[in-house]
């Protein structure tokens, strides 16, 4: 019997900037078909980890396997199978929404007509059809996230890597994006997302890992976090060691 490889398997991953380890011996397994939430306070190493998974930053040491394929090594094959919702600076501000989505489709080798047709459908699905002629540079933050997610879907990837996909998105947009993501997981895709919004993670994800100072401090199925008396927020604050009370300055 052949064992199905996990969507993401990371072993002893380290990334050192100057003499500081941003990611320090990270071990992580993301099962296929899961909706995985990767949480952590600011500067914990979330973005560095996702940048390494996307192939944007080479690890200092350790191994990464995505969909059973090593990164780096077979990264071209890996890239074909993943959809990215990167941070906003990766978008092309002088393109319109449909143009950007079509561009991404063509980068995944979709025929031009197919890419254009899918771009049109995705623009409608993400309710961006009112801003078809607007350049991405003129979009609001929430609209930029929507267009990034729409582009990530165009080649029907098996794995989604999403960096703060709900940041700046309004309630209507967030509901729309959540519904689309849930549908993708039902169809067998895996989603790995970083987020600060614990409510969203609690509602959507079936697996969670919390990173702090470059190391995983806790991980498990969402049910394990729900079973106790603590909320996810309480657990988060406790495991990252942020329970202390800070004194406000007198003038504040």
């Amino acid at each position, binding site marked *: 019997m052949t064992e199905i490889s996990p969507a993401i398997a990371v072993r002893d991953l380290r990334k050192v900037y100057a003499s500081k380890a941003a990611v320090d011996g990270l071990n992580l397994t993301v099962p296929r078909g899961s909706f995985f939430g990767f949480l952590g306070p600011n500067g914990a190493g979330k973005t560095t980890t996702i940048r390494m998974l996307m*192939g944007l930053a080479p690890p200092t040491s350790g191994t990464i396997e995505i969909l059973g394929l090593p990164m780096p090594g077979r990264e071209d094959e890996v890239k074909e199978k993943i959809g990215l919702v990167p941070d906003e600076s990766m978008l092309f501000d002088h393109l319109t929404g449909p143009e950007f989505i079509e561009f991404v489709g*063509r980068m995944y080798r979709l025929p031009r007509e197919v890419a254009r047709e899918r771009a049109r459908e995705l623009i409608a699905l993400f309710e961006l059809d009112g801003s078809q002629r607007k350049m991405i540079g003129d979009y609001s933050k929430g609209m930029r996230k929507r267009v990034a997610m729409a582009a990530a879907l165009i080649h029907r990837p098996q794995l989604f890597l999403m960096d703060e996909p709900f940041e700046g998105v309004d309630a209507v947009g967030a509901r729309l994006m959540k519904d689309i993501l849930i549908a993708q997981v039902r169809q067998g895709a895996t989603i790995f997302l970083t987020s600060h919004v614990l409510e969203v993670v609690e509602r959507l994800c079936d697996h969670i890992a919390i990173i702090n100072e470059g190391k995983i401090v806790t991980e498990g199925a969402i049910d394990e976090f729900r079973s106790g008396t603590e909320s996810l927020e309480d657990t988060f604050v406790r495991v990252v060691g942020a329970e202390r009370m800070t004194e406000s300055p007198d003038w504040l």
Partner: protein
Amino acid sequence: MPAQILAIIWAQWRSMRNYLPRSRGNNWLSILVSASWYAAWSFAAVSTGLVFAQTDGKLLYHLLPSGLFLLTLYWQIIPILMVSAGMSLDLRKLVPYPVPHSQLFAIEVLLRITTAGEMLLMICGALAGLLFNRTVPAWAPWTLLIYIAFNLFLSVGLRDLLARVLARKRVRELLIFVMVLLAALPQILLRSVDSRSLNRFFAYEPGRIWPWMGAGHLALGTNDIPSLINVVCWTAAAYLFAKMQFGKNLRFDTSEAAAPDRIQSTRVSLLDRGFRLLPAILPDPLAALVDKEIRMLARSPRFRLVFLMGFSFGLIIWLPMAFGNKNPNSVFSSHYLTAVTVYGLMLLGEVCIWNVFGFDRSAVQIYYSAPVKLSTVLIAKNIAALFFVMAEALIIAFVCFLLRLPFTAAMLLESIMVTLTMALFLLAIGNMMSMKNPRPVDPGQSWRKTSAGKVQAMLLFIYAVVSAPVGLAYAARYAFESDIAFYAVLAFDIGVGIVVYWVAMDSALDTARFRKEDIVSVLSRGEGPLL
């Protein structure tokens, strides 16, 4: 052509098409200068073609390799001197997609044409001329195309190598130190080595080892096989160099290179002590703005590169012109310090005069919403620019003193006064241009994306206008044979400059108020797949 390359080209074209209508009318100067620049080069290319079509083969045997040498020099060195290496792929945005690296490399090589389109025109002129020359076999001129490939590959390799090296802390400073030493080399040689040995060295016939010799001879159909081997070997070496550097750039992590050291000194630096003096000299919020501006610029890789180029490459570029001839007391050598300082000002203009909000990008919103007058912001930016211009002038003077180049207190005073006068007029025009044509600039991006030649032409045009008042001062010195006359005219120029500055400030503020929404919107944008 592979579909992904087409997609990248398409996205860049759409980006430009979407962007250009908004900037229409503001770029008239750039368009005018570009058109004149390329028209002049086209004329030179046609002239070269006409000359080459009729020149005797023996003369061409000496002429063509020298021409190709100058061409390579222009193609490879001018972009470095002007800190303007043409367009390049934004690899950060393209690496996540499954595009084979060989395709990205192919686009990058083609983009190197943007560094020296002028040289492509010249090669085309030479090629056409040689095709009409009856003494040259018909197949031979076409081999010049290999020489174009050689230059393209070399340009990719050099650009990628420099971009990576200059992004690394400490290595960058070391490189600049090496540059300064290089600047000193000719002077050290001239002073320490016997002139006869130097003459022998420069008169030495280097044979066919250099690529321009091989390419020149091959294009004339002489020494076929050795020249072919020469050209192929050099082109292969340049290809491997380019491929290796491009591969390293693909794997390069800029965040890692720019990461601050973990252990940072808790001692107050000299610069910080200087900043603490600012509130004593200037009132807040002006002091705070100047403080912010100086710190921001000093931390920007783009600015640092330009600033360091002023007193490193700036010294090299003018050395041969100043001291290359037999007369050590020529007009140029006695004004060497002023020339280098003005070159430094010219380079700094791009990062702190012509587009003052360029590095601020979306932060410009704060200037409009904070309870600070926009005139205060502009004055703060101009004070910071003057600070760096004067710092550059003093460093250049110090390096000249160290290298035993002609240096006297009078020369220093002259260079500072001339630079200050020109800077005043430049700041006045710069404030207006910054409001009329603001462009977002990535402070982390070391190289400018326009052609170095075009930048040079544009700056020459502006400087020709701005140097007129200084020219008057020199004319006064010449006419009256008196330094007093020179400084009196310069003092008058400074007075006029101050009036022009305030008039221009009013105009800039009007534009800033009128175009508020446009300025904020344009500055907060990123770009297409090309940088």
